[in-house]
């Protein structure tokens, strides 16, 4: 009797050690419909990459440029990504430099890291800093200035936008 219990116990242990089945992975996220719509800029920051690397205090590392030019707030800027692949951008009174209309696409539909704007022969690539909250209607664009001879990043600009309307 004792032997049977022992065998049953060992068998139970062995079955307990079977690997769990890996659950099926969901379909790849389609970011295009999430990006489609009108986005308004709500924060514009400039980062001194050298100061950041040296862990300088915040006032010498990051500057909030959102309202730095009186009468020309960057919050005036908005951009609309249409479902048909066209876009329109409105700088308002801000000094934002971006193509104002044309076509848009992402560099990689499955894992987009940049939005490419084009108008005639002109193209502008907007790096995506974060898509983590795109489902919540928030997205961050990133622009980097690199030293011409070394390619080292010297200045970063982070544009935080919120979706104001779906299309």
């Amino acid at each position, binding site marked *: 009797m004792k032997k049977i219990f022992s065998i049953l116990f060992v068998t139970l242990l062995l079955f307990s050690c079977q690997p769990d089945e890996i659950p099926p992975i969901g379909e790849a996220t389609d970011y295009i419909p999430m990006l489609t719509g009108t986005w308004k800029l709500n924060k514009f920051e400039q980062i001194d990459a050298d100061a950041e690397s040296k862990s300088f205090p915040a006032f010498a590392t990051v500057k909030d440029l959102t309202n730095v*030019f009186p009468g020309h707030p960057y919050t005036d800027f908005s951009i609309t990504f249409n479902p048909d692949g066209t876009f329109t951008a409105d700088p308002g009174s801000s*000094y934002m430099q971006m193509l104002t209309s044309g076509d848009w696409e992402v560099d990689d539909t499955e894992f987009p890291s940049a939005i490419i704007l084009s108008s005639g022969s002109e193209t502008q690539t907007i790096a995506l800093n974060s898509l983590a909250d795109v489902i919540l209607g928030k997205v961050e664009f990133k622009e980097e200035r690199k030293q011409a001879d070394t390619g080292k990043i010297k200045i970063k600009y982070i544009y935080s936008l919120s979706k104001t309307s779906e299309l």
Partner: protein
Amino acid sequence: MRQLIIISILIFGTFVLKAQDALPKFTVTPSEIDALTENVVIEFDVTGTAVEGLTDVYIWSWAPGLNPSEMLLCYDQGSPSWGSISDNAKLEPVAGQPNKFRLSLPKTVTRAGVEVTFNNVAELFGVGDTPGKIKEFGFLLRSQDGGSGGKQTPGDMKTSITLLPLEFEPSYFRTFPAKVSKNDVVTAYLNLSLIESSENQKLSVSDAFTATVSLLDENGTVLLTSEAFETTFTSEKEHAFSFIAEMLGAFPEGKSLDDVSKCQVVFSGKVYNQDESFETVSTKVFEFDFQDYE
């Protein structure tokens, strides 16, 4: 006689043990360095240490807090391994002084088949882009053999080099970012608590500060000068204003932003008299070069 032999062995053993524990002497040139200091020379004197007499002396070095913490000279690729130190870690012998060895920067080596030049301590530890992460590094000197027959000086940070902190230094005038291109948003700051002795000291009691900006070509010719901008007073007690070169005004005919290579900034304040009249006082001309950023 037997007692004499025992005493002799004990004395000899003490000397041997002492040599095992002896620390190498070292000098750092320049005497104070930070993680980004270039042209650094560290010279080691191994007299009386466990590695004295070796022709080839290797450095094994590590920086607390980094992962991996070992200096990149110690291994060629993958993970650092005490048992297979890279030839890159071999110190350069000092000619004519058999007990002296040195490590000089810049140092060019081959790692994983690629030629690499280390210009500073941060790059030696693979944190060239985040030099603030390294505060100090320890080292020991050793033979190539890391086994039981190998020799080494004491570890456990018994010999270490502390780096000067990479600190922000307040100044009378600065820009943010510290270096900018002509396409960037520039913020200029004036810190009157650090006013220079050659300046008009009335600036310290001035009010209603404004600033003008001039853009110059590479020959120093002024291409345009802006209107006077109002400044703000920051929480760091600096007068500040921001601008973009392109928004400063119209260039003279035949000139454009492409011709701009330098920038000059002048701050001006008002000193009020008792009869409510005022005098305008200005700072010297602060000049900086625009960088070539893509």
